[in-house]
């Protein structure tokens, strides 16, 4: 199904759409308040953007530097060219330790690789320990947002889910009670885990260390309790220096949720005594994206999710209307590179209002990339798009002034003479919630020809 079809279904429950819109707009407002407290915010954005530009232009150097330093620190480093390799590596590490229970903190990369289902098929119990992730995992859903995975759910929905799966009181909806239930349930999982997997927010080339940002401390708890810590990262997570964290940590949480900083910024450098630490560095299409000049900047992304929060289309269509793992504007410029046909509709799920680009902490020109992807998608699609034909006709019409004027006149006459039930049929989707303009008797050109002598102006 296209984004439009899914969104049309989602939007039928208008009260829920309004609630979803307001919840995310509230986050955007909190972000505005926080970022405006930092006078040098725009300088930070520019700096962050330049650091990322440098990273991508020297990516090979930084990656090998990172690997060397990580190995010196006693970490085992793995390279995965795609999702399958990534999953195989994880399974091999787990099997090597005879690990059957894995606790996992938030990682969009493992979502992208569909790691959970792969491991479950291979007899591993995977428990997502981020509260939002755990909720969607229990419901057999995917995250609808990259930072707020369960933002599509109300507290009543969570109460119902916990009642079914965790045996909490029926009808419970008090967030504190529900969080308590989750905490108790997860504590037991943490204590019995054989291995912990975390994501990576930043990988620092000069130290070989990684930084993981969470609000729940679940990454730390998992990584410190279990005998094995695996961290999965995309190749673009590299930053050159420890001091660069000073730029990115100031921006990430402010832009994501309007917090000055995440509750936990955990820095992992070397394994604890008796523990193993593995870094899995994943490409999975990123090198290809790096080679696309118009789209390489999409790899600057630090996954703050602000472009989702600000997007008026995302807020009203919900994350699940986008078929890609990463929804919203950033997902819509990443997904065509993964599968142009499958995700073709996502680049069109935007008015090109540009709010995403202005809110982006690393200055990705998101809406310009959407525009550019549209050109490629239309060009390369075998035109199941009847739209392409219509556009050809429009192109012809607008390059032939006489024809344009004739069509305009006929069109205006039709609109003014046809009855409403003909105008507002299923084919005219404009009629969905809106009236057509009332056609004037004369076009401007007609008026001009009749009145130009009165205004005294010359042709």
């Amino acid at each position, binding site marked *: 199904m296209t984004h439009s079809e899914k969104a049309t279904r989602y939007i039928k429950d208008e009260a829920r759409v309004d609630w979803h819109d307001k919840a995310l707009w509230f986050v955007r407002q909190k972000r505005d308040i926080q970022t405006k407290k930092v006078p040098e915010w725009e300088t930070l954005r520019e700096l962050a953007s330049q650091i990322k530009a440098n990273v991508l232009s020297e990516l090979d150097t930084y990656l090998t530097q990172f690997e060397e330093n990580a190995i010196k620190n006693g970490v085992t480093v793995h390279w995965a060219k795609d999702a399958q390799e990534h999953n195989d590596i994880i399974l091999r590490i787990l099997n090597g330790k005879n690990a059957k229970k894995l606790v996992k903190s938030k990682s969009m990369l493992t979502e992208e690789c569909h790691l959970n289902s792969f491991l479950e098929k291979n007899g591993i119990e995977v428990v997502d320990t981020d509260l939002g992730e755990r909720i969607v995992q229990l419901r057999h859903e995917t995250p609808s947002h990259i930072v707020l995975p369960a933002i599509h759910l109300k507290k009543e929905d969570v109460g119902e889910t916990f009642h079914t799966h965790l045996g909490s009181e029926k009808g419970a909806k008090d967030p504190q009670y529900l969080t308590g239930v989750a905490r108790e349930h997860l504590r037991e999982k943490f204590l019995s885990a054989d291995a912990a997997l975390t994501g990576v927010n930043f990988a620092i080339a000069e130290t070989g260390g990684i930084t993981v940002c969470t609000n729940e401390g679940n990454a730390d708890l998992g990584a410190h309790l279990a005998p094995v810590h695996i961290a999965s990262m995309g190749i673009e997570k590299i930053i050159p220096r420890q001091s660069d964290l000073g730029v990115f940590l100031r921006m990430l949480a402010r832009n994501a949720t309007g917090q000055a900083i995440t509750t936990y910024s955990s820095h992992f450098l070397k394994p604890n005594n008796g523990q193993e630490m593995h870094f899995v560095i994943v490409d999975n299409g990123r090198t290809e994206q790096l080679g696309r000049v118009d789209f390489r900047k999409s790899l600057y992304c630090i996954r703050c999710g602000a472009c989702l929060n600000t997007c008026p*289309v995302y807020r009203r269509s919900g994350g699940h209307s986008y078929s890609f793992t990463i929804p919203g504007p950033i997902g819509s410029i990443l997904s065509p590179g993964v599968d142009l046909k499958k995700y073709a509709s996502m680049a069109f799920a935007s008015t090109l209002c540009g*709010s995403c680009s202005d809110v982006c902490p690393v200055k990705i020109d998101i809406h310009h990339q959407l*525009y550019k992807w549209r050109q490629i998608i239309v060009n390369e699609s075998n035109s199941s798009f009847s739209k392409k034909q219509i556009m050809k006709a429009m192109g012809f019409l*607008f390059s032939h002034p006489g024809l344009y004027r004739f069509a305009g006149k006929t*069109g205006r006459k039709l609109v003014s003479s046809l009855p409403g039930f003909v105008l507002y049929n299923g084919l005219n989707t404009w009629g969905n919630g809106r009236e057509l303009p009332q056609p004037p008797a004369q076009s401007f050109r007609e*008026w001009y020809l009749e009145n130009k002598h009165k205004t005294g102006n010359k042709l």
Partner: protein
Amino acid sequence: MKVGLFVPCYVDQFYPQVAVATLQLLEKLGCEVGFPLNQTCCGQPMANAGCEKESKAAAKLFVENFKDFDYIVGAAPSCVGFVKEHYDILEQNPDVSHVRTKIYDITEFLLDILKITKIDARFPYKVGFHQSCHALRGMRMAQSSEINGASFSMQKQLLSMVDGLEFIELDRTDECCGFGGTFCVTEAAVSAKMGSDRVADHERNGAQVITGGDVSCLMQLEGVIRRQNKNIKVVHLVEILNGVSFEK
């Protein structure tokens, strides 16, 4: 100073009063205005839909129509912005670059070229200003709410010169109306909801009139208002600057 009046296709066909107001305003301010009779469309609708190739012929025709004017002025930041930003689809020559550098939205033209400081118009209404995205983040005619910097708005600055006009405050100062070119029909459900939410914001905050700089947004908002039978009028800002009156 010879000014070429650019009238976007949908303004020509559906909102001629906006073009009339633009013409009259420019003439009042002493410009010699010409209207090339063979103009059609800037080409944006096709390009935004992913069919840049199909807009080339329209773009060529546009340059042909306007290459001999000192300035090209239209009351449509969206279309003007398209000419400036996207006419790189044409082979660049002196005519193309002349058109791209000398095209102005009416607001920019009045403030930056004619440098007007007062307007002889009265509009005694509570006005909700709808910020078009292309004026905001394309043409940078105002500070967007995402950016940390001093707030300004060229269009509101102009409207502030009008006697009696009172701006209402909106809950969301620069959220998109949902028009978005072909988006309004390909994503009709989301588009209509966005339009409806925008109108609700203006209504909630007491707007008697909604104005703005891009007719496309206003067409969307007016479409919602008429469908929902709201008592809010919609006029383009040039109509206000030109002294539009609702009195019979």
